[in-house]
C-alpha cells in the first residue's frame, strides 16, 4: 500500500518535472527540472530493488551528463528570440498530427494489453540472492560482452574526439 503511494507520487513528480522541462522559459530552470526528473527516476529504480541502477542513474545522468548540459547552458547563454513563435520553420500543425498519431498508437497498445492480459504475471520485485552489482557484472561480462565492448569503444571515440576538437591549433 505504501509502495503504491510512493510509486504514484514519484510517477506524478516525473511527469510533472518532465512537463516543466519542456515548458519553462528559463533554460537553467529547465535543466534543474531535468535533474529532479532523473532523481525521481532513480527513486523508482530503488523501488524496484535495482539499487545499483539507481545509483548509476544519479552518478552518470544526474551527476555527469546534466552537469555538462548546465555548463553549456550557462556558457552559451541561450535566450529565446522574441519572434520564435513566428519562425517559419516551425511546423506546428504537422507536430500536432504526429503527436496525435503517437498517442493513438500508445492508447491502442494499452487497450489491447488490457483486453488481452498476457501470460506473464507481474511479479513483485524481489531482492536478488546475489547483490545487484554482482548480477549486473556477471551479465555484462558473459551474456552481453559484445555490446559492452562496443559501448566502451563508443565512449573512447567520443573522448578522443572531444579532446581533438578542444585542442587549440598550437
Amino acid at each position, binding site marked *: 500500500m505504501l509502495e503504491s503511494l510512493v510509486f504514484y507520487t514519484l510517477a506524478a513528480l516525473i511527469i510533472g518535472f518532465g512537463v516543466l522541462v519542456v515548458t519553462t522559459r528559463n533554460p537553467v530552470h529547465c535543466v534543474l527540472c531535468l535533474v529532479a526528473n532523473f532523481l525521481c527516476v532513480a527513486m523508482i529504480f530503488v523501488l524496484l530493488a535495482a539499487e545499483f541502477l539507481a545509483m548509476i542513474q544519479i552518478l552518470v545522468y544526474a551527476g555527469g551528463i546534466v*552537469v555538462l548540459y548546465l555548463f553549456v547552458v*550557462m*556558457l552559451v547563454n541561450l535566450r529565446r528570440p522574441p519572434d520564435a513563435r513566428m519562425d517559419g520553420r516551425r511546423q506546428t500543425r504537422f507536430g500536432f498530427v504526429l503527436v496525435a498519431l503517437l498517442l493513438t498508437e500508445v492508447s491502442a497498445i494499452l487497450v489491447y494489453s488490457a483486453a488481452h492480459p498476457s501470460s506473464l504475471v507481474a511479479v513483485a520485485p524481489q531482492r536478488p540472492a546475489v547483490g545487484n552489482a554482482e548480477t549486473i557484472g556477471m551479465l555484462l561480462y558473459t551474456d552481453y560482452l559484445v555490446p559492452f565492448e562496443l559501448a566502451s569503444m563508443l565512449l573512447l571515440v567520443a573522448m578522443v574526439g572531444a579532446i581533438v576538437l578542444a585542442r587549440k591549433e598550437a
Partner: protein
Amino acid sequence: MTHTYLVPLLKILVLLNAVLVSVTFMTLLERKVIAWVQVRLGPMRVGPYGSLQPIADAIKLLLKEDITPVRADRFVFTLAPIVSMVPALIAFAVIPFDREATFFGYQVPLVIADVNVGLLYLVSITSIGVYGIILAGYASNSKFPLLSGLRASAQLISYEIAITMMLVSVVVMAGTLSMTGLVDAQYNARVWYVFVQPLAFVILFIGGLAETNRAPFDLPEAEQELTGGYHTEYSGMRFALFFLAEYANMIVVSGVAATLFFGGWLRPFPNVAALWILDYIPGWMWFLLKTFVFLYVFIWIRATLPRYRYDQLMRLGWKVLIPLAIANLVVTAVLKVLL
C-alpha cells in the same frame, strides 16, 4: 512496525544533530589548530578558551541582513546553498560508525542505511554536490562568479574520477560495495587496507582535498581576491551554509578514508587477541578517533602548504592522479585474479 520506522528515524535525528553540531564546532577546531600552528591562540574570548565561539558566529550569521542581488535568479539563488548542504548531510546515511551497539536492550547497527551499494551511493551523492557550486556561480548574475563557479565544479569533477577509481580498487579487493562489508573484509583479511593499498589511500586523500575545495586546492575560494568567487554575492546564513557544507564534506571524506583504509570501527590489530584490553574502547570511538585524525590532517595541510594555480591543479588531477589511479586499479585487479 516500530522497528522499521522508529529506529531509523531516531538514528537520523541523532546523526543529523551530531553532524550539524560537529560541523559548527569544526570551524572552531580549524581556527584553533591553525592558530596554534601560527604561534597564535585563536578565539579566546567567547566562553572558556573560546569554546563558545561557533555559537557566537552562528548567532551573528543568523542576524545578518539577507541580501539578494536584484537581478539574480531568486529561485536558483536560494537553491544553491541547499543543494550544497543536503548532499553533504545525506552522505552520512551510509557511513558505518559501528557494527552494533546496544541501546535500551535493542541491538542496533550504527549505520542508518546499510545498502549493498553503499559506496556507490556516496560517489553519486558527491556528484550531486557539484550543482551547488555551479548554481551559486550562476545565481550571482555576474560574469566572474559564473566562471569561477564553473571552474570550481570542473575541479571537483576532475578529481572525482581519481577518487572513484581508488574506491573501485578497494572494492575489487573486498569484493563488496557495502560499507559494513568493506570493514568486514578488512577484518577477514587481518590487515587494514592502507597497508595493502597505500597509493590508493594517498590518491583518495589528495582527491578528497580537491573535492572539498581545501588547500592546497582552494583556489576557487581564494579567487575572491581576484575575480570574485562563486559565493561573492552570498551573505549571512546562506554563505555559512556553503562553508558548513564544505566541513560536512570533509567529515564525510575523513569517514570514508577511515572506513575504507583504516578499518572503520576496528581497533588496531583486531585479530590479535593479546590486545584484548583495547576492546574496552567501543568501536564507534575508534571510528571517531580515526576520522578526527584525518580532519586534523586536513587542517594541518591547510596551515602549511601554499596553494596551487588552477592550471597546475588540473594538470595534477588529469596528468598525474588519473594515470596513477588507473595503474593502481589495473595492478589491483590483476593481482586479485592471480593471487
